[in-house]
């Protein structure tokens, strides 16, 4: 026996037959195509589970019918980027510095590679942007110990300074005080003379004795006027830029028992094109010659 479907008096529409506090809910069914769309998404999800990695297991997971893996995809993308990058890097390696500079595209690649490499490898000692740290030279300045030409910088990065590399930049300043080469008064006199060279002899101390000692012991490396000698890594004594301080005490300490920086050679860790890029980047920081 068919029951009559309840109708709402006012709207004349069917109701769901449910009543809450006297309110009857009109039957407003959702369209059937909407249901089919929902079923279609369910079917799609089954296909997705089958095709793609989906079900986790205790010792692994279901790899999917086509064996897709995001890790494999990342690796292949990294490899393809490396292949693309290699094209430019090979050219950087083969091209002389002057020609790289006149090729804006190649230059941009070198600068980018140099910047990243610098941040990863050089920054801990030389500071961000080559700003330097106490005892570690500022690279953004025009004051150089071993030379600021692109080739000089390249050599310094390749072989480093005072390390085991046979081609490393080498020099040894005698330990005038510790090894007894000069007496403390003599060292103090030399320090006074160095201060005078820097134009810092404000009280007019007599520096003739110091000058004589300087001529005998220091001139060979640091030069007549304290201008330094890059072949032996002897710093310019008159430069406003210095590694270990410019007070008289600091100078005396440096003459007595010189501190001398060591830098690793990067040949072992970085390839030639990358080192060249680092040289270009460092050269661009502001002091390149």
């Amino acid at each position, binding site marked *: 026996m068919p*029951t009559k479907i309840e109708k709402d*008096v006012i709207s004349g529409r069917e109701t769901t037959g449910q009543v809450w506090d006297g309110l009857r809910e009109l*039957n407003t069914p959702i369209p059937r195509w909407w249901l089919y769309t929902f079923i279609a998404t369910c079917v799609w999800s089954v296909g997705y589970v089958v095709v793609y990695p989906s079900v986790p297991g205790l010792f692994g997971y279901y790899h999917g019918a086509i064996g897709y893996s995001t890790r494999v995809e990342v690796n292949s993308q990294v490899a393809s980027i490396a292949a693309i990058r290699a094209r430019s890097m090979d050219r950087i390696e083969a091209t002389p510095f002057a020609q790289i500079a006149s090729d804006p595209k190649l230059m941009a690649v070198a600068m980018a590679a140099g910047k990243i490499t610098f941040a990863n490898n050089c920054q801990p000692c030389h500071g961000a942007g080559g700003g330097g740290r106490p005892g570690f030279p500022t690279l953004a300045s025009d004051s150089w110990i071993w030379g600021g030409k692109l080739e000089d910088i390249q050599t310094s990065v390749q072989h480093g300074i005072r390390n085991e590399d046979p081609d490393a930049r080498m020099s040894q300043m005698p330990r005038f005080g510790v090894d007894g080469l000069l007496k403390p008064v003599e060292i103090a006199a030399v320090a006074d003379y160095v201060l005078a060279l820097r134009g810092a002899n404000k009280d007019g101390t007599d520096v003739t004795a110091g000058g004589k000692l300087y001529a005998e012991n220091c001139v060979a490396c640091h030069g007549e006027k304290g201008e330094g000698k890059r072949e032996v890594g002897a710093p310019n004594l008159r430069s*406003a830029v210095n590694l270990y301080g410019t007070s008289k005490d600091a100078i005396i300490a440096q003459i007595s028992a010189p501190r001398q920086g060591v830098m690793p050679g990067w040949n072992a860790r970085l390839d030639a094109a990358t080192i060249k890029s680092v040289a270009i980047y460092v050269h661009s920081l502001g*002091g390149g010659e």
Partner: protein
Amino acid sequence: MNEYVTPSADEVSLYGDRVRVYPRAVHGIARNFKWALLIFCLAVYYILPWVRWNRGPGNPNQAVLLDISTERFYFFGITFWPQDIVLLTGGLILAAVGLFLITSLFGRIWCGYACPQTVWTDLFMLVERWIEGDRNARMRRDAGPSTLDKVWRKLAKHSVWLGVAFWTGGGWIMYYVDAPTVVGDFWTGQASYGVYGFTFLFTATTYVLAGWAREQVCTYMCPWPRFQSAMLDEQTLIVTYQGWRGEPRGRGKRDVIPAPVLGDCIDCHACVHVCPTGIDIRDGVQLECIGCGLCVDACNEIMTRTSQPLWLIKWDTLARQAGLAKGEIVEPIKLVRPRTLIYLAVLGIAVAAMGIGLAMRSLLEVSVQHERAPLFVRLHDGSLRNAYTLKLVNKYTHDVSFTVTVEAAMRAKLQVAGSTDAPADAITILVPADSVGAYRVFLDAAPGGVEAKNAEITFLLRDTTDNILIKRSANFIGAGKPGGG
């Protein structure tokens, strides 16, 4: 009175079968306006990508082009840069408030006449009517067996639909890439996957939405009908059936004596048959109604034929209709109300802000950034160097050369990084046309004590062509102690 009986579960389905709507052709004022707007909108859409605009060599000559690869939006004489995104935001606000205003005044004008869903559905229905005939012919054929006549008409209809959809989908792409080029590339197989993919996508959506989904989009998918009621009130002009005049509805002669107790509505269902969403306007305001006014036209035709006054279904406000139903004298339609005034004010502010923004939009942009690592560098002669990055945006189509100087309390010289020129009081920077450049410059303060302190400085950039002076303040970071020592 109906007695309520709870139906058993198998009688009430959870899902409703789609009731096919077979809208009938109709003529009248609303229909004419709708045709006019349809032709205008479609003409703009299909023709605009082909309009050319000369921007000089090396620049696209398409009047309206949203060039994703170079991040430019060309609109006739104006070129927008990504930095102008605020104008887009402003434009969207403008569109939204404009829509609110129009809706609070005239109801769902947008839905009924200008919405792309409506426009393309109308176009597809026109094609359908041409090929399959009007409502009755279509219903009869659909209910009948698959005859040759039915098959070829269906095939023809869907082919034309697909053609229009393809034209529409392709037209969309032309707003993103040069139209003549992409058409050539498309047919010679040289276009990008993106072009083919999006053409296919928009062809498919047009075909499905305008051909198959139609009123289902408005009723079930679109959010606008759900919240447009927030803009409507009893003073809004909407399509209404004047029940007080029409009821009691019924067929039968009205000029006999004694006159039967019948209203003006002859219950012919003409208003239902023309309705693109298949509803009965006589049931009152409904979510499904897109306010197209076709039922107004349909009923006016009937009223003319039955020699009764027109406008049994008309555009009117709920407040007036409520009054008329009670036999009161009603006030005229109020277009000026607090709500519309507020929308108008917001719209005015938005238009003004946009106008000012557009007018003051500079074609040269300059920003100066102090470099942070390192903050400063001591040079061998004791001078102190600060480095700055000048970001120069040249939106002109010609190169611009700037002369850069610095106003500072100390003696300082400028140098472009990497340049072999000696530091000088003024430097020149050339910014190529239509480009953004970042230029590193050094400011070397001579030793003497002043350079030890932080200082405020000002960069002065003079555009040498137009002699425009741009000032940007910046900081000079001192070393905290004098150099040279």
